[in-house]
């Protein structure tokens, strides 16, 4: 009897140890916001990450030789990638599979992937401002992200892929995981480590995504008896975005900058138009269109909804696209040949003003191929309907589908208010000269000290707002706060503001669950360590003291116990049942019975021999 009792005392002590360590583990649990890689189909072909829920152990490297990663979530800081690492050269012999891209393309099994974005990309991080002259690291990071994003958007990945921002918690976890991986011990259920859990339901298809266009008018001054309709100038910018992580796709430059320029121009001209003396003989039409990344589907719908007379009254349309970078020249993209009189007029108007502002504006001509469904520039939607139009952009070549639409890197830190102010001046001044017939004259309406000066704080506040708001059209509801805000702002300056809701057509299908919360649990190993250390010290009094201190904290948090714990529990339960058995036998049948119970087989053996 004495031996089992002793054993049970030790077991109870062990249980106490575990209790203590487990309680301390509660504090190590961290929760992090994560943003899922987009999941979408183009014409039924699946792209992006096809799963949302995650529940595996953490790992730090894809390329541990001989390791089975099918139940491991690999965490990769984007800062540790470089482009060659992403796209290892195929010819390179010893680079066998050391590119992430290859790893994914080869459809190697993997539990999940978490990309850690640098802290500066976090929406909460506002203190780092655009540094004018770039530090090279930022430019490199941008290139890496562009490359990574381009790859991820067109990959079909059968496991969950998430983006998260580096912070102290994550970095600590990552350092731990790396240390673990270096020792060559892969994290499994028995050795413990970190467990990463994102509980999310199966992603569902978004039923019929809608896109919302917003328009507003500044009517020009009609002289009495003038029956003909006034000509219209349209200023258009598409406001929605598309990126690898829809919940991070804020598109400060593409096309938040265009939206800000449009709003500021609307504000400036509303000042001019509010006074009958300075009211021009042109109607101004402002359009914030959606569906930009999808061949300007919203612009298409918007233009189709106009009646013929209105469309014909449009003198020309200026589309604004990605105008927020200081170090790039601006380009006017047109689809009619530069010799065309209207185009010439527009371009000359712009280049004159640009010269005065000390800017360079170039003209780029790209013919429209009607049979090609790809619409690379917003003005092409106008041109297809025979409306003269041009796009002002810092991009010199037409972007591919889903490119330059507000990806991962496109955030506040890569956009400069000064560049936007400059663009506002350029566009507003050119428009004003056209409207008031002052072409070719050096004449400044929007000079800095006049009452029509560009307002930098207005620009900054709108840029900040847009840089905080992901605007991927299928995930915006019809009366999303940002749409309401844009409408309200436009209504401040213009009249007849209206929303137009349309279905997004085309071959895109989107899936929900764009963000989640990552729970990081710490399992097993620490427990084992704690047990060993305490066991070695053998200081029971100390332990009891700890126990008293910690017991108060009990009951909160989540613990993942390890197999070690279960083994010990089994031991405790086993000894409990044995004691119970012995006790019952002794009380009901007597001690002799218990002894004979064990002796019987032995005595039988003796008999047989």
């Amino acid at each position, binding site marked *: 009897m004495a031996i089992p009792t002793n054993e049970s005392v030790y077991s109870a002590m062990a249980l106490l140890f575990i209790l203590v360590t487990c309680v301390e583990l509660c504090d190590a649990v961290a929760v992090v916001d994560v943003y899922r890689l987009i999941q979408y189909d183009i014409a039924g072909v699946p792209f992006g990450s096809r799963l949302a829920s995650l529940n595996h152990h953490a790992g730090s490297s894809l390329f541990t030789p001989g390791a089975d990663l099918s139940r491991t979530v690999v965490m990769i800081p984007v800062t540790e990638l470089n482009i060659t690492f992403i796209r290892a050269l195929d010819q390179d012999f010893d680079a066998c599979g050391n590119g992430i891209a290859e790893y994914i393309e080869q459809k190697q099994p993997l539990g999940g992937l978490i990309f850690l974005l640098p802290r500066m990309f976090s929406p909460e991080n506002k203190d780092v401002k655009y540094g004018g002259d770039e530090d090279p690291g930022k430019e490199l990071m941008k290139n890496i992200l562009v490359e990574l994003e381009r790859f991820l958007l067109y990959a079909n990945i059968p496991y969950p892929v998430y983006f998260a921002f580096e912070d102290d918690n994550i970095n600590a976890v990552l350092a731990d995981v790396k240390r673990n991986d270096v020792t060559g011990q892969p994290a499994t259920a028995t050795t413990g480590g970190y467990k990463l859990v994102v509980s999310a339901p199966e992603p569902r298809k978004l039923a019929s995504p809608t896109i919302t266009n917003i328009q507003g008018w500044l009517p020009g001054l009609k002289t009495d008896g003038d029956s003909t309709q006034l000509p219209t100038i349209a200023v258009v910018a598409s406001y929605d975005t598309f990126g690898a992580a829809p919940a991070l796709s804020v598109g400060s430059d593409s096309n938040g900058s265009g939206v800000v320029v449009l709003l500021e121009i609307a504000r400036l001209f509303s000042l001019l138009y509010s006074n009958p003396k300075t009211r021009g003989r042109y109607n101004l039409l402002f359009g914030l269109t959606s569906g930009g990344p999808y061949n300007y589907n919203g612009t298409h719908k918007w233009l189709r909804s106009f009646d013929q007379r209105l469309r014909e009254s449009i003198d020309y349309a200026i589309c604004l696209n990605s105008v927020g970078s200081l170090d790039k020249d601006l380009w006017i993209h047109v689809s009619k040949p530069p010799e065309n009189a209207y185009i010439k007029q527009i371009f000359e108007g712009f280049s004159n003003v640009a010269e005065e502002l000390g800017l360079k504006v170039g003209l780029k001509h790209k013919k429209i191929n009607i049979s090609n469904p790809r619409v690379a520039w917003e003005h092409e939607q106008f041109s297809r309907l025979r409306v003269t139009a041009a796009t002002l952009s810092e991009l010199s070549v037409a972007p591919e589908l889903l490119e330059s639409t507000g990806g991962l890197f496109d955030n506040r830190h890569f956009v400069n208010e000064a560049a936007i102010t400059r663009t506002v001046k350029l566009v507003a001044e050119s428009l004003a000269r056209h409207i008031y017939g002052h072409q070719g004259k050096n004449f400044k309406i929007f000079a800095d000290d006049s009452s029509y000066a560009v307002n930098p704080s207005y620009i900054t506040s709108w840029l900040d707002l847009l840089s905080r708001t992901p605007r991927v059209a299928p995930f915006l509801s019809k009366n999303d706060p940002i749409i309401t805000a844009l409408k309200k702002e436009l209504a401040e300056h213009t009249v007849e503001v209206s929303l137009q809701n349309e279905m997004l057509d085309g071959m895109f299908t989107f899936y929900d669950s764009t963000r989640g919360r990552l729970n990081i649990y710490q399992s097993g190993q620490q427990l084992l360590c704690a047990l060993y250390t305490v066991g070695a010290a053998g200081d029971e009094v100390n332990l009891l003291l700890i126990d008293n201190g910690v017991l108060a904290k009990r009951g909160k948090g989540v613990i993942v116990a390890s*197999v070690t714990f279960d083994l010990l*529990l*089994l031991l405790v339960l086993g000894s409990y049942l044995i004691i*119970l*058995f012995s006790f*019952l036998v002794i009380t009901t049948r007597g001690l002799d019975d218990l002894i004979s119970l064990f002796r019987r087989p032995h005595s039988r053996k003796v008999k047989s021999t």
Partner: protein
Amino acid sequence: MTVFHFFNCAILTFGPHAVYYSATPLSEYDTLGTSVKAALVYLGTALVKLVCLATFLKVSENDSFDPYQELLKALIGFIDVAGLYFALTQLTHRNISQNHKFQAVGLGWAFADSVLHRLAPLWVGARGLEFTWDYILQGLEANANLVLSISLAALGSLMWLRKNKPKTLIPIIYACAGIVATMPSITSYLRRGLGWHFPEVVGFELFTSLVMAFTSWQLFAACQRPSS
């Protein structure tokens, strides 16, 4: 965690029943049939109880302690006693002594209770990722419940089967039986009315079950003496 932990909890919940059966003379006299019958009676009783609860009890919105409802619940709880009475007196058993009969009935009763109330939550919950002490505590509760069931069966057999018991002990027997039978209501009161946490409630249950077991053992022994 998971399946291993589930097995641990299952061992804690159901192991004592098996150990009790095999360690005591119950196994020697082969009283399994009695236990199975008692378990079946328990199932029937549980069904009747369920119907009664559904008929007479309002579904309370909040988790507070409503004395009237609880009183009703306690009354319905006495259906258990009726079921136990039936199992002890009406079922025709093979010729086993009263000593073994009440134990077998209590064991079957407790086992059926454990299976009905604890197996499903265990299967669903203990295999989850999150570790909680709840299922281990629940297993301990099952142990307490086993002891209580056997005590109640012992007291029941004293009340209904034994004719020549000392007169002085009768009120004590009835009082003890009453206490044991209202145990579910008492724990419910502790949990909701006084806001005790689960570990405290389980501790209380374990303590009371031991006290009641000791008391009923002494009573049983006291009743045994004059007859023997």
